[in-house]
């Protein structure tokens, strides 16, 4: 045990001696959560649009006012002819051009229908679709249809009444940080020892291989816990997102996920020959698939079926569901036992594969 503690101490010294790496390990979660909290949002705000008003009457003016009142749009240009539309998209970089037909008010009053055209820059299709939908809604609610009869929808937004986009990001950030810090750092640091030859020194020492591995990962588990706590603290105090469910359960799940990430890191290190390879493997195996397939920016339900299946083997997907349920919905173990078991299964598979690889190598 003493031997083991001495070894863990050595690992800590390695990490803490390199001030730069350590700073990054602790600052990264904070920077990320701030970026996600403030910057990564799919909500449309102040999209710049141009108006081509061929009628210039009080109805079109009122409609434009309504658009502006919504906060979704800001008018950056008033165009005078159709010829200017194209350059308004390329040079002016507007996202949408609203074209009112001539004699708009007359048509509306006399014929009962007036036409407006929405030209959207669909090079960003997501934004284009949302902008046109919002505008269509705003135009449709103009006039008599907006009366207070009919079937009225009374909406309750559960779990996130202010529709704060940040709610969606927290579980994703936690998954990403834990995955990257734990998996990438362990895979690289173990590969480094292999490369420098100090792994052999450790292997012939009286330490058992299992102790070596535990010694390597202990500091990262502690670091992961510090990261989790700093994320939770920031989300509580800066973004006002409290933990609704059991804190103990949440921490337990986070540690479970950290162990999963570490076992993945160990697996990568048994395969990789040098640090560069380990890094590219972690980078490509982890970063983009985690961002794209775990469902924290892009909803999994919308993906093609193949990708939905593929997302099942992305461990963060399950962790994100767990965090959402416990932290944001206030669910308990009864709601997440299935996902928890899946995480455990991943750990078993990763550890099993690493042990197999490891033994094979020793026999060489």
């Amino acid at each position, binding site marked *: 045990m003493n031997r083991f503690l001495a070894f863990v101490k050595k690992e800590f010294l390695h990490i803490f001696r390199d001030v*730069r790496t350590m700073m*990054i390990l602790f600052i990264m979660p904070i920077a990320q959560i701030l970026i996600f909290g403030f910057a990564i*949002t799919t909500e449309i705000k102040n999209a710049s649009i141009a108006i081509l008003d061929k009628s210039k009457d009080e109805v079109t003016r009122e409609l434009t006012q309504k658009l502006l009142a919504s906060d979704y749009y800001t008018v950056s240009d008033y165009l005078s002819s159709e010829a200017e539309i194209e350059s308004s998209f*390329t*040079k002016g970089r507007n996202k949408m051009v609203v074209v009112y037909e001539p004699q708009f008010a007359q048509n509306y*009053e006399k014929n009962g229908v007036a036409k407006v055209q929405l030209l959207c820059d669909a*090079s960003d299709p997501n934004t284009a679709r949302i902008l046109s939908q919002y505008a269509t809604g705003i135009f449709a609610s103009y006039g008599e249809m907006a009366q207070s009869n009919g079937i009225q929808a*009374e909406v309750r937004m559960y779990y996130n009444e202010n529709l704060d986009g940040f*709610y969606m990001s927290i579980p994703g950030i936690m998954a990403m940080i834990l995955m990257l810090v734990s998996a990438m750092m362990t895979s690289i640091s173990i590969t480094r020892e292999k490369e420098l030859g100090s792994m052999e020194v450790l292997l012939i020492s009286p330490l058992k291989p299992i102790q070596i591995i535990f010694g390597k990962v202990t500091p990262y588990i502690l670091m992961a816990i510090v990261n989790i706590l700093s994320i939770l603290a920031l989300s509580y105090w800066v973004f006002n997102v409290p933990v609704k469910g059991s804190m103990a359960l949440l921490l337990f799940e986070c540690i479970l996920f950290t162990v999963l990430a570490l076992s993945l890191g160990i697996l990568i290190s048994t395969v990789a020959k040098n640090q560069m390879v380990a890094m590219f493997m972690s980078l490509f195996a982890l970063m983009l698939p985690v961002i794209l397939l775990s469902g924290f920016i892009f909803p999994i339900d*919308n993906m093609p079926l193949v990708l939905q299946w593929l997302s099942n083997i992305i461990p963060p997907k399950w962790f994100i569901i767990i965090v959402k349920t416990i932290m944001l919905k206030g669910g308990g173990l009864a709601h997440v036992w299935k996902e928890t078991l899946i995480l455990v299964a991943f750990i078993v598979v990763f550890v099993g594969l690493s042990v197999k690889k490891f033994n094979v190598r020793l026999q060489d």
Partner: protein
Amino acid sequence: MRILISLLQKEFLQIFRNKTLLPLIFVLPLVQLIVLVNAATMDMKNIRITVVDMNLSSTSRLLVSKLEASPFFEVGDMLINKQMGIDYLQDNKTDILLYMPQEMEQTLTKEGVVKVQIIADAIDASKAQLAFGYLTNIIQETHMQVMLEQQKLQNVKRISTNSSFWFNPDLNYKYYMLPGVLVILVTLIGLFLSALNLVREKEIGTAEQINVTPIKKYQFILGKLIPFLIIGLFELTLGLLAGKLIYGLPFSGSLLVLYSFASIYLIAVLGLGLLISTLSQTQQQVMMVSFFFMLIFILLSGAFTAVENMPELAQKLNVFNPVYYFMNAIRMILIKGAVFAELASEFRSISIYACISVTLAVLSYRKTN
């Protein structure tokens, strides 16, 4: 010049001899590109809706049948108990709940107005909002139809809206995501390869052997920069070809403009990578520092979410973000067919960036400590 050529020759020999690295930098990214662009869509389909119909009238049935016909919703179980519906929400079995009260149809006919309840899982706020929007539209339509059938509707004035989508009429989000993911891959590979390569030479001691030769600093840095510039452009070409052949990615603008921009961009990024590695001692440090910056650069660049929606401060930070410029430029060129003049400001910014990062890399590279 001979020295430079010989440096390049050495680098390429080393890169192509590294058999484990080659698939990692050429095959894996391409596979990711082809697979992952399919993931990134905000196109809301299949929103899971659970209906609690306490009314069981023709109106409520009309509404449900309209929901079933809608491409946006996937109607799940029909319940007759609101609490059960909320449990569904809690267990993540549904995204949105529509509750129609017992006397809905009767109240509507009698008083002309009635309330239904929509309860949405709002953790994903934008999804909840969109779902609510679609649902309100469907409810409105149902009401219109009911009124038409009862002939209560007289001439209604309305504004007819007609949307058309320029540059990408089918709203194919792959046209948008593919260049985005491609930029990320090219950037990651360029930056990490160049940065790790230099610091690795420091670690194994070959850098010292070079430092004791009369090689000039700029020659050495160029020798490290050019190979990865070529690899980056090659990678970009592969990605564009894959995009064209598999997903019909449009090439609306001039490839010359695109490749000119890409070259300057890669020089800027590689310069940054080399700068990081001249300031670091170990590969681990390089990885952590590069990773830290790359993650921030990528997330702020607008690769996944539009920059316009970001707060002022984040948009200002993008001045220092090379990825942002290229992300803008490649989409403008490929999809909108932007010409050089329309990208002048991006060209200017990225050129300044490239000059500064390469100069700093040369200056901070120390042959003598």
